């Protein structure tokens, strides 16, 4: 009975666990090799490369906003890492993080202080940074030859051949993110700002400051992810990172974050990112549908999850299934 209670509690706090379970079952039905150590460690390796972006996106979504520029910041992080790898490893790690933080700060200014709607503000930043990347490295793949060994460890290092350095860093980031959201004032502020900005202001929380913090963290994590990927691959294509914003939003939303803000967890985001990673893995392993279908399914999954979220939220706020008058359309 105790185990059953524990399972019930875990599922209730993270409904996406059910989705994960279903995905695992489906995947092992489709492919025999799925549950092998090698495959699972592959999956984990993949998700730890772009997982940090989803964590950053979670912070922004919690504040009730959205950050569409993460794909471009990812590319910028990659390019900056490559550029500074010629000078010193310390700079190659610090500079992308600084750039990501800077552009995240700009996003925060646009959305928080200038009060631009998030989609317009972050789409503009996305365009600007993409232009910047194209200006910096032109239209061809950018590479600087062999990267210094210590940088390569970041992307390619492994222990026991299935625990990779990016995976370790991802787990550390998850723990740090969870700590930030649950135990620090800044993190708790994000929940309040997303849940009810007016209350936040009345309580003395500065909404612009919280937004700026969230966006800066999101930018830093996106640039960090770009850095990790580029140390693994060794070169950067100027249009890289497109589509990362959708994957990040999907990861956070599937993990239970409400797009209206105020609800979400790091553990949920981890589960969401894992589900998306498993889905990609399963999709790549099957040969029934061409690879173009993957995008269709990713979009469909996101719509389905958001749809269910909308229905549940609507039920929660009105207590009834539908109300005609007095609800803003």
């Amino acid at each position, binding site marked *: 009975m105790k185990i059953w209670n524990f399972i019930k509690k875990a599922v209730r706090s993270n409904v996406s666990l059910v989705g994960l379970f279903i995905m695992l079952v489906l995947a092992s039905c489709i492919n025999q090799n799925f549950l092998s150590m090698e495959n699972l460690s592959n999956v984990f390796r993949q998700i730890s490369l772009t997982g940090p972006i989803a964590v950053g996106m979670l912070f922004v979504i919690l504040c009730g906003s959205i950050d569409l520029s993460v794909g471009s910041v990812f590319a910028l992080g990659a390019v900056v890492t490559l550029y500074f790898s010629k000078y010193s490893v310390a700079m190659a790690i610090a500079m992308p993080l600084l750039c990501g933080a800077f552009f995240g700060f700009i996003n925060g200014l646009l959305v928080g202080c*200038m009060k631009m709607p998030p989609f317009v503000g972050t*789409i503009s930043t996305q365009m600007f940074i993409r232009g910047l990347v*194209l200006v910096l490295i032109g239209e061809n793949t950018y590479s600087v030859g062999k990267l210094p060994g210590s940088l390569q460890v970041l992307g390619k290092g492994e222990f026991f051949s299935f625990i990779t350095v990016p995976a370790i860093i991802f787990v550390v980031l998850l723990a740090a993110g969870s700590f930030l959201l649950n135990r620090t004032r800044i993190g708790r502020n994000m929940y309040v700002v997303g849940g009810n900005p007016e209350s936040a202001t009345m309580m003395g929380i500065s909404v612009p400051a919280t937004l700026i913090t969230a966006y800066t963290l999101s930018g830093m994590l996106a640039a960090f992810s770009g850095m990790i990927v580029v140390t693994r691959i060794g070169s950067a294509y100027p249009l890289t990172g497109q589509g990362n914003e959708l994957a990040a939003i999907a990861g956070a939303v599937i993990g239970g974050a409400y797009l209206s803000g105020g609800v979400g967890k790091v553990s949920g985001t981890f589960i969401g990112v894992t589900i998306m990673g498993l889905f990609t893995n399963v999709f790549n392993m099957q040969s029934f549908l061409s690879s173009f279908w993957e995008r269709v399914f*990713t979009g469909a999954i996101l*719509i389905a999850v958001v*749809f269910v979220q909308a229905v549940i939220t609507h039920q929660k706020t009105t207590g009834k299934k539908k109300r005609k008058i007095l*609800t803003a*359309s």
Partner: protein
Amino acid sequence: MKKRKTEQNHDLLYRYGAAIALALFTVFNCIFTRNFVSVTTFWNLLVQSTTILMLAMGMTLVIATGGIDISVGSTMALSAIVLALCVSKGHIAAGVILAVLLAAAGGLFAGTLVARFRILPMVATLSLQYMLRGIAKVVVDGYRISCMNDAFTGFARIRIGGVVPIQVLIIVLTVAVMYIVVNRMSFGAKLEAYGNNPAAARISGINTMALCTFCFVLCSIFASFAGILETARVTSCDPATMGYQLETDAIAAVVVGGTPVTGGKPNILGTFCGAVLLQMVTIMVNMHNITYSYSLMIKTVIIVAAVYLHRRGHR
């Protein structure tokens, strides 16, 4: 009653801001850009801005409702692919109808999600963008479709009186029709009311669900028009690149034109000026031999400046 000075200023800025910016840019280019002052450039400017203008016309309606539709580029691609497939087999009319219907279906889907289920337009259209682009690629297996059908491609090359390209006529007709619909018919009034205050509009008896859905459908239909015109002009269609990232240009045109981003009165003439302005930026960048990437940064600055100025005009 005489309006206060700030309100007068705001009205001026709102109605003519984009036109003033366009005039300034034109003057700047006439002075500083070689070969700018020529009839060819003038017609080229208008013809090339057709795509953005079509997209922006539909986008104006959606932004006026307070939402956004970033799937227009992918809708354009899907419509264009379907059209190209039909045209390469010889059925032009069927292709056009099918393209428009498919786009309308996509718009209906997005509109229903937004209006009825109250999903954030951002997310609904972001997912739709992915799905539609994926479907477009699936339909042709990623290949580029060329449609060398003389009747079809000849249409894009018609010049009225030997001088005016047909796209200009299409632009003028579209802007005129949209202006009448938005400013002289009740649809526009309802749209403005809904954009300013959705709850009040609903209580006043406006069928907000139908209105919102209709705007999304119209936006997708305009996107399909843009796809049709572009395919006719370029005579081929690549599912990966057709309409790629054009949604940001469309949004920029609308924002520069003065339609409030949070919803409100759609400014059709402003969108027209915005679209031409953005195309002028692209041409200017080309003519000065600056790389295309800089135009992205310039456009961003323009968007941010436009939002800032319009917002300041509000206060």
